[in-house]
C-alpha cells in the first residue's frame, strides 16, 4: 500500500535518481527516434524527375554561335566555334525560368538580368546562373551532367 511518496522533495534515493534519469533518457530517446524516423520517411529516396544526366544529341545539331533552350531540362546549350557549354535556365533568385535576351539572359519574375557568362548584371538574384559539365559520350553525343557544376570558363572542346 505504502508507495513511499516522499513527503519532501529533497529525499531522492540513489535508486530513485537512477530510475528517474533512466526513465527520462529512455523517454527522450523514444521520442527523438520516432521523430527522426518520421522525418527520414518523408525524405524521398527515389525521384521521378527527369534525370540530371542526359544526352543532348550530336554536336553538329547545334550551329556555331547558337544558344539553344531545352524545355524539359531547363538549360541552354551554348556553342561557340568548337566549344560547348551548358547553362542552367533556372534563376538563382526564386526559381523562375530565364529567357534569352540580346546580350545575356533575363528573368521575367523579378527582373534579374544576367550576362552571357551567366553573371548577375542587375536585379535581386544573389548568384550567377549555374554552368553544368558537358562531356562527350562514347557514341559521340553531348552528355550533360547537372550534378557537376563547373566554372563559366570550362568548355568542352572538340
Amino acid at each position, binding site marked *: 500500500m505504502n508507495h513511499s511518496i516522499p513527503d519532501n522533495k529533497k529525499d531522492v534515493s540513489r535508486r530513485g535518481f537512477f530510475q528517474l534519469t533512466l526513465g527520462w533518457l529512455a523517454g527522450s530517446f523514444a521520442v527523438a527516434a520516432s521523430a527522426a524516423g518520421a*522525418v527520414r520517411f*518523408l*525524405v*524521398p529516396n527515389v*525521384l*521521378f*524527375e527527369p534525370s540530371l544526366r542526359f544526352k543532348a544529341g550530336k554536336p553538329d545539331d547545334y550551329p556555331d554561335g547558337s544558344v539553344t*533552350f531545352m*524545355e524539359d531540362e*531547363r538549360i541552354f546549350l551554348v556553342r561557340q566555334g568548337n566549344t560547348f557549354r551548358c547553362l542552367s535556365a533556372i534563376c538563382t*533568385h*526564386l*526559381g*523562375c*525560368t530565364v*529567357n*534569352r535576351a540580346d546580350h545575356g539572359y*533575363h528573368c*521575367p*519574375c*523579378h*527582373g534579374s538580368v544576367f550576362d552571357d557568362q551567366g553573371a548577375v548584371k542587375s536585379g*535581386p538574384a*544573389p548568384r550567377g546562373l549555374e554552368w553544368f559539365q558537358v562531356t562527350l559520350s562514347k557514341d559521340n553525343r553531348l552528355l550533360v551532367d547537372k550534378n557537376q557544376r563547373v566554372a563559366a570558363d570550362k568548355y568542352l572542346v572538340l
Partner: protein
Amino acid sequence: MNAPLPKRIWQWFTRTRVGRSIFRIGLPESNLEQSQVMVSSFLLHVQPVKVHRHSLRASYSLGLGLILLYLFLILTGTGVLLMFYYVPSTEKAYDIMKDLQYVVSAGLVIRNMHRWAGHLMVLFVLLHMCRVFYTGAYKRPREFNWVIGVGLFLLTLGLSFTGYLLPWDQLAFWAITVGTNIAGYAPVIGTKLKYLMLGGNVVGQEALTRFYALHVIVLPTVALLMVAVHLWRVRKDGGLSRPDEPGDIVQQIELKQLPTNKTYGLMELARGTTPQVGKNPEDEVFAWPHLVFRELLLFLLVTAVVLFLAIFWNAPLEELANPIHPPNPAKAPWYFLGLQELVSYSAFWGGVVVPGLLVTALMLLPYMDRQRKGVGRWFARERVVANTIFSVCLVIAVVLTIIGTSFRGPNWGWVVPWKQPPAITEGH
C-alpha cells in the same frame, strides 16, 4: 397562447417524449431554465451561463474571433465537399477544377466559397490580432493564449499556402515555386527544407501529394485542436479581457497558498479572474439569449457574405501549370507579396531575417511587455509606445503588400494599377 406557429410547434415537440429526450430543456422560460439550457446541451456547455456585459459589446471585440471560427467551419464544410471530386494528380487536378466550374452542379459556387472564405480568413486573422493588440488583451493571464494565437496565425497562412497549389494552374505552380524558393533561403536547413516540402527538387507530383495531405488533414486537424484550446482558454482566463472596475472584488488566490488539509472538488478551484471571481453580479447577463443569439446572428451574416461573394465573383483559374513559361510577373499569394517585395531587394533579408524576427517578436511580445495597465480599452493612453511600434510595423507591412500586389508589373517593374498591362507569358 398567441405565440407564433413555429414557436408553438417547437414547444409541443420539446414536450413530447422524444423531444424531451433530445433537448431536455425546451425553450427556456425562466432564469433557472436559462442556466440549465447552457449546461445541458453539448454545444452550449462550452460557454458560460452568464457573461459580462463588456464582453458582449460589439464595439470591443468586433466579433472578429467568432468570424474566424465561422469562416473555419465554412471552409471545412465546402472543403469536404470539394474532396468528393478532387484528385491530387498533376494530370487530373486541373481538369477537375474545370469540371467543378462547368459541369458539377453548384461546383462553381462551392469552389468560390472555399476560395473567398480562405482569403477572408487570412484577412480576419490579421484584424483579430490587431484588435487583441490595440486592446492590450494579451497581458496577464492571457499571455499564452496570445502565443497560441500566433500559432493559429501561422497555421492559417500554411493552410492557405498549401491550398494554393491544388488547382495546378499557372497561378498555383509559380506561386508555390516562388514561395518554396523563399523557404530555401533559410540558413543551414533551407535547401533541405525545400527538398522536404517538395519531395524533390521541383514542383511536381510529389509536391502536389504533400501539399494535399497537409492541406486536407494535417493542418486542419492541428488548427482545430488549437482553436479548441484557444477558446477554452478564453473562458478559463475569465472571459474576454476588460478594464478593472472599482466595484470588482479582486481576489488573487494562488493555488499553492490554499490550506492543504482540505479536499477541493476540481471545478471549485477558481483562479485569478475566472467568471466567478472578481465580478459584480449586476454586470452579468445570461448567455441565453444575449450571447447565443448574437452568435447565431453573426454566423448567418458571415455565411451570407461569403455566399454573396461566391455568387458574384469567380475564383481565378488560369491556364494549366507550365514549368517552362513563368507568367510575368510571377507572384506569390497576396499575403506574401509584402515579403516578395522585400525579397526582390534581397532574398535573404526579405525571405528569412525579417519574417523570422517578426514571428519571434510576436511570440515573445506578451512576456516582453511588462506594463500592466491599459487592458480592455482600445488605444489606451498607457500603451501609446507599444501601440505606436505596432502601428509602424503594420503600416510598413500593409504598404509593402499593396506595392507588391498592385504596383508591380512585368519584370517586377513599377506599374500603376489603373493602367496595369495583363501578365505576359513569354516564349523563348
